[in-house]
């Protein structure tokens, strides 16, 4: 497994400077994605999921956001140290991204065809016509008639626009596809369609997938592994069935408890007490400790390290790691 690591994020720290103060969006995020792996990154709003995704492509909003520590290695090469040219060659071709809100992530004044074919033309030597041909195929593939190539985003519904986003994402068969909450902004029925589409494409294209979401259902449908993020750090990481079956971290457990299950027994839904740790007022020690029922004294001052509890299943929690 070690030698086919595709993307490695090591102790990544990202800071946002705004007039309301300085916020630490990521505080030592460590994550590895292997070739062909599909990894789910799960966490609540504000946990740093999108920041992590943007960091990978070195697309943090400037000048507010910056990486203050750690490293992102793509195929062993540091993304931060890459030249602009190298970055541009990777973006869209090797690593591509599907954005959260299809209403804002498509340029309203260009046709959808242009917005797909621009990535093709950028990375492949081809004529406009060839690019358009390929774009048509891609559109058909994501369920949009190719004839709508010349239509503008405003002429499409949200779900259709996300299909456009996906088409652009898979256009060049990238090694890694980062999907940042691709269904959040959509209606439930549309969500299901998009998910079906992604599933279909995932089997069709042999692409690694980083699926960022707060929807655990999506992860269990699409991913092999899952990482749980809280307060800008990974707190639990492992195969989906392990993590969801026997969650270790109290936060993960809480997350799972917060999902109503149709099949399971009728038990009371557990809500996690307290508010999510914000980037500007991150608690010392374990970020989760003010909300944690199992909190011990150590949690308030020291950051718990990642510990392997069983093969492939790691957790960052003093209590659970010791309890093993």
């Amino acid at each position: 497994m070690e030698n086919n690591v595709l993307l490695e994020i090591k102790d990544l720290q990202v800071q946002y400077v705004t007039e309301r103060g300085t916020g630490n969006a990521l505080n030592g995020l460590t994550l590895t994605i292997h070739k062909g792996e599909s990894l789910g990154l799960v966490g609540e709003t504000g946990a740093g999921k999108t920041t992590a995704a943007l960091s990978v492509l070195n697309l943090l909003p400037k000048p507010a956001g910056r990486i203050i520590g750690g490293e992102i290695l793509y195929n062993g090469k540091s993304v931060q140290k890459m030249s602009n040219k190298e970055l541009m060659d990777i973006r869209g071709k090797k690593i591509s991204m599907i954005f959260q809100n299809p209403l804002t992530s498509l340029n309203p004044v260009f046709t959808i065809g242009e917005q797909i074919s621009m990535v093709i033309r950028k990375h492949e030597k081809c004529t406009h016509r060839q690019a358009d041909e390929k774009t048509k195929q891609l559109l058909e593939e994501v369920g949009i008639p190719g004839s709508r190539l010349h239509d503008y985003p405003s002429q499409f519904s949200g779900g259709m626009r996300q299909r456009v986003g996906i088409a652009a994402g898979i256009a060049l068969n990238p090694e890694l596809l980062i999907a940042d909450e691709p269904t959040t902004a959509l209606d439930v029925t549309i969500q299901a369609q998009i998910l079906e589409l992604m599933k279909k494409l995932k089997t069709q294209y042999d692409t690694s997938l980083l699926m960022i979401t707060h929807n655990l259902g999506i992860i269990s449908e699409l991913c092999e592994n899952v990482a749980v993020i809280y307060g800008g750090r990974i707190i639990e990481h492992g195969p989906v069935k392990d993590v969801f079956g026997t969650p270790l971290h109290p936060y993960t457990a809480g997350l799972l408890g917060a999902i109503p299950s149709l099949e399971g027994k009728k038990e009371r839904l557990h809500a996690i007490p307290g508010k999510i740790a914000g980037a500007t007022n991150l608690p010392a020690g374990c970020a989760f400790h003010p909300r944690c029922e199992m909190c011990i004294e150590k949690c308030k001052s020291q950051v718990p390290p990642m510990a392997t509890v069983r093969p492939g299943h790691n957790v960052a929690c003093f209590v659970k790691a010791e309890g093993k």
Partner: protein
Amino acid sequence: MPNVMRFILKRLGMTLVILFCVSIIAFGLIRIAPGNPAMLVLPDGAPEEAIRAMEVKLGLDQPLPVQYFRYIGGVLKGDLGTSIIYKIPVKDLIFQRLPVTFQLTVITMVVCLLISIPLGIIAGSRQGTIIDFSATMFALLGQSMSTVWMGILVIYIFSVKLGWLPSMGYGTWQNFVLPAITLGYPVAAQVTRMGRSGMIDVLKEDYITATYAKGIGKAVVYTKYAFKNALIPIVTIVGMQIGTYLAGAVVVETIFAWPGFGQLIFQAVGTRDYPLVQSCLLVSAALFAIVNMFVDILNSFIDPRITLH
């Protein structure tokens, strides 16, 4: 495109209604003004009988509604009336002056857009740099320059002190330079500012991040993908300015002795040349409406979200 045609027809219809109102306003305004054109075509101190006779000759003795309908009837038949002072058809006078102003406006606009659009885009995409600061200062200064002061200043510098350019008249390309600078700087300033702030706003958009994520470089993003979005408010404002300049460059035309349309209106108001004033206001309102119609059509091509209706 039938859509465009329908829009043009509809807009022209609306323009006609507005022009009708403008014609009433122009007719009323100039007649409320104290003064009598009959007195100006006669020698200073002419006897009252002569003035009265002249009024009859000019039809000014008729009741106002009769005068109005006579005038508007003529306009509908394409006759803009005959100037009281010049005694030649108003149409000829306007067609003589308009191209002069038109040339100045077009040249000014082309040059000032060639400068200000790139400047605004560069400033907006390099927020906080020295280029941005300079462009912002250039823009703020331009918007603070009175045309009067600016005109005299450029004459002082380029004509009087340096002797490079003529300070007056109309004819050669040199004659265009100073009026164009004076007329164009405030617009260039405005466009630079709009370009800059438009660019800043656009660059924050998700779709620009998405474009970067596709591997598109900054240069292409600035000049193509973000540019088009930032262009929309600029087109609108430029259209407004063209419309304004076609009629309202009175100050610049006065300072540079430029025999344009603005001067004609100014003189016509001064001499109470009723038919001339009325028709000049009508023509300028019509030009304004037509230019704005083009702008709306152009904008609808740039931004598909704008529907023509």
